[in-house]
């Protein structure tokens, strides 16, 4: 059987996988016309707008705009579009949709599983007359599901951002701009114009001010102990009190001592 005629878009950043899915669909559903192939999420959204396919096959992991974001944009513009996600391995966030308004396929896609999806798509397209909402769920439901999915995958795919704190410090060393992981940094100390960053393997001057750094660094790991000094707590060996309510910070891996001014002395009261 050739099945009813319909239009579809395939989006995957890997060309061989686009070709293979197109070939499988040509076998299983000759009536389906692949009107566009997209290489990333942004292209998928653009091409979907131009070609208005009835079905979009979207790879979940694509550069730039990912599959879920692309789906939100496409369904937002054309609520009747039916979305089928393609993913490299079982993602449990997607399993919830297997029987619902959204479908998903796992790579490598086998013909049997694709045939099930094809017959579901044909049923839904047949049921969706000009005045009916598409498929089982209404367009509004689909949009809501996509929002939820984006939230779920957003937290899973893009690893936690470590609270948005500064993780890398750019420092010019000779010709190069070194990137120093903040967990290697021992202390930062400023003079008039520059700030010195010191780590176990060396030191360099950076343009950021102590004030900026104090705002951007994780306060759990770095404390400002002086108007011009920030120190990494993990690298402090001891704090030695001096006369007149002053103190000095001694470091584990470096010989220099750092001043603690009166207003920050309370930080070490319990140490």
């Amino acid at each position, binding site marked *: 059987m050739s099945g009813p005629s319909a239009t579809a878009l395939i989006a995957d*950043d890997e060309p*061989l*996988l686009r070709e293979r899915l197109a070939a499988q669909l040509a076998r299983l559903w000759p009536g389906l016309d692949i009107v566009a192939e997209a290489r990333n999420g942004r292209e998928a959204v653009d091409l979907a707008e131009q070609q208005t396919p009835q079905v979009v096959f979207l790879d979940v992991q694509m550069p730039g705009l990912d599959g879920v974001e692309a789906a939100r944009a496409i369904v937002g513009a054309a609520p009747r579009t039916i979305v089928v996600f393609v993913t490299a391995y079982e993602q449990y966030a997607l399993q919830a949709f297997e029987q619902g308004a959204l479908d998903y396929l796992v790579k490598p896609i086998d013909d049997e599983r694709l045939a099930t999806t094809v017959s579901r798509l044909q049923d839904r397209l047949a049921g969706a007359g000009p005045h009916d909402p598409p498929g089982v769920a209404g367009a509004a439901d689909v949009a809501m599901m996509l929002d939820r999915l984006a939230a779920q995958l957003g937290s899973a795919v893009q690893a936690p951002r470590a609270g948005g704190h500064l*993780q*890398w410090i750019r420092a010019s060393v000779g010709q*190069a*701009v*070194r990137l120093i992981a903040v967990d290697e940094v021992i202390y930062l100390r400023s003079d008039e114009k520059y700030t010195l960053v010191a780590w176990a393997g060396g030191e360099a001057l950076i343009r950021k001010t102590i004030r900026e750094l104090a705002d951007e660094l994780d306060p759990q790991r770095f404390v400002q102990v002086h108007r011009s000094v920030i120190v990494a707590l993990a690298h402090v060996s001891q704090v030695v009190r001096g006369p007149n309510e002053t103190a000095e910070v001694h470091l584990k891996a470096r010989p220099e001592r750092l001043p603690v001014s009166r207003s920050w002395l309370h930080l070490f009261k319990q140490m």
Partner: protein
Amino acid sequence: MGRIDLASLALAGGLAVVAAGMLSFTFVTPFRVLLGRTLCLALGLLLVYHGAQRWPERWRPRWLPRWLLTTLAVALAAPVVTFVVYVASVGGDLDLLLDSGPWIRGLTTTSLSAFAVGIVLTLAALLREREARALALELQLELERSRVERQAAEARLAQLQAQIEPHFLFNTLANVQALVESGSPRAGPLLGSLAAYLRAAMPRLHAGGPTLGEELTRVRAYLELMQMRMPDRLQWRIEADAAVEPLPFPPLALMTLVENAVRHGIDPAEDGGQVAVTAARGDDGTLRASVADTGVGLAPTAPVGTGLSNLRERLAALHGPAARLVLSEHSPRGLRAEIVLPA
């Protein structure tokens, strides 16, 4: 520290019997009486020995090592305990004891014998205890060493297992399947690349340490696979001095950097980029291996991945502070990571 156990009691008793037997040749005193005295003496000295061994650390003078303290205590105790035993055997009558020549002679002989035997036995016992302690320490060290080795092996295994990302594996398999189905002649070589890549994740069975050449083979296999998957977005090249290929190199160190470059540099970029791998000896004799990409670069708030922090720890564990992992910005865009190993 030794305890008063049956063996030490038996030894003290046995020695007392022997001493009593020997003394009975020179003394007129009956053997039973002599045995009573030597037994008391042996037990007394045994108690003094253990007392000295347990003497609290804070009451021991700095200049007096414990072995000397114990030996001195036993040596001093020998005449004292002998005297006490003799006083007891004359019923506490000191006059009788001190006025009688035979008594004085017996007391002196016994004291001196107890003194000599006590010192020799104490030193022997101390030596034995030290050997036992050394043995225990060695066993403990051995245990510690095997524990560390096991931990290292487990860490290695965990790292290797973590290397094969399901996304990578299944996407790659899907690509290979596409090539096989379409009858493409590229399918065969690519399966070879996949095998070479996967081999890196298997426990090593052959002898000989891992080399940079092997690492470059894996890296090449990985880049070939990735280029099959994103032919229009990934270009790559490897430039390595043939001279550095036989050098030892921590396995997967370069691979971690190359995977990072592709996954976090090239893949998020819609128009892709280039990955350049180089390996050569520096002017200072160090081995320098670098991976530079022209991808999206590193955001200042991007968390330090486990791959990078593991790699940093491994380099430090293998070569100390002489090994470095240096990250820098690549111009005009992207990231450059360099591993520097000491000469």
